[in-house]
């Protein structure tokens, strides 16, 4: 009799843990937004390398309100006819910015000396509906763009409607299928070059890794994989193929987040190696070093900068 009791006890405990691990399909987490599907890969592989000098000064007047002044001096690339040569024009500009951050309203505006305004607005219309607007307005005719997005966040899905100038309409939808897998799709219709497209995306993430894949009727197939080795190190790899223009690019990158600095680097199948170092010299003072070596085109870009505040 005594021999029978312990096995019953252990069988009950095993059954209980199995119930805990079983997936609750009515209570799935909300997925990441469709445009941020590959955000971990973008952090490592698409770091913003720059060329020249960059100085950013940001002054907070308030918890919510801050002003920023930026000076950028360096060559900017001009698209050239032949793919082998790149034409660079040295430019220098100053940009004034104002930011307002509220739990319900976020306004960011950046104005350059040549009259170009870069504006971003994010407003929470209701608990679940968010309006985002993004505009680049310039003095040159036909060079201004604006885009409005309406995002609806459901319990385990997100839907978005996009309206852009020159008759651009798009919609995206993403749904959590299991606690780790989310699937989504997008449709867009552009008025000026009369074309429409449809695309699908999938994202699988765990604590240690994230894998995403995207297919679109514009011809792009993109897959990326990010592995988090530890709290400080993560490695990423990305593969992009365009079946209409037969372009293929593969890249491998890393992201080291250390106590005082952050290093991100990547190497490409186009022969491009790049790295970006952000070092915290003291409280509120960051030093940036950027390098991008394009061995195929023999184009080497180096930049340094300082960020205050």
């Amino acid at each position, binding site marked *: 009799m005594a021999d029978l009791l312990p096995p019953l006890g252990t069988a009950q405990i095993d059954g209980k843990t199995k119930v805990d691990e079983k997936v609750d399909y009515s209570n799935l987490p909300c997925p990441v937004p469709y445009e941020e599907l590959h955000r971990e890969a973008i952090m490592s592989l698409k770091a913003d390398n720059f060329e020249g000098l960059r100085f950013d000064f940001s*002054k907070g*007047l*308030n918890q*919510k*309100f801050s*002003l920023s002044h930026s000076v950028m001096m360096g060559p900017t690339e001009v698209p050239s006819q032949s793919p082998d040569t790149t034409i660079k024009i040295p430019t220098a500009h100053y940009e*004034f910015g*104002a*930011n*307002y951050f*509220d739990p319900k309203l976020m*306004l*960011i*505006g950046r*104005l350059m000396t040549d*009259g170009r*305004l870069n*504006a971003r607005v994010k407003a929470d219309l209701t608990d679940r509906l968010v309006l985002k607007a993004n*505009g680049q*307005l310039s*003095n040159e005719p036909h060079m*201004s763009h604006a885009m409005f997005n309406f995002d609806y966040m459901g319990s385990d899905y997100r839907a978005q409607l996009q309206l852009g100038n020159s008759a651009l309409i798009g919609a995206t939808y993403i749904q959590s299928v299991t606690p780790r897998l989310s699937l989504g799709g997008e449709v867009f219709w552009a008025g000026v070059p009369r074309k429409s497209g449809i695309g699908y995306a999938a994202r699988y993430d765990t604590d240690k890794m994230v894998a995403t894949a995207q297919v679109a009727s514009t011809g792009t197939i993109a897959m990326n994989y990010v592995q988090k080795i530890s709290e400080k190190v993560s490695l990423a790899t990305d593969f992009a193929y365009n079946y209409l223009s037969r372009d293929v690019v593969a890249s491998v990158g890393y992201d080291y987040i250390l106590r005082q600095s952050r290093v991100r680097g990547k190497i490409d199948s186009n022969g491009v190696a790049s790295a970006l170092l952000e070092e915290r010299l003291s409280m509120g003072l960051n030093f940036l070093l950027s390098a991008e070596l394009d061995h195929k085109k023999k184009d080497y870009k180096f930049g340094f900068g300082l960020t205050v505040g």
Partner: protein
Amino acid sequence: MAAKPCLKIKGRGKGPKGSSSSTTSSSSSKNELVKEWTNWSLKKAKVATQYGFIPLIIIIGMKSDPKPHLFQLLSPV
């Protein structure tokens, strides 16, 4: 500067005399009218945003709590 849309439509109405039917010409002229007005209003909205967005952010920021001083806005420290 952009001419007001009404003058343009009047000029267009006088031009073609042998039009097929009055209804199609009036509906197409209504379409033209709507297009002209939306283009005009979008242009004015773009200019207003370009000039007024940053002042709008500054006004909203200066009214938020705790109210910052005008001196803090202008000084570089």
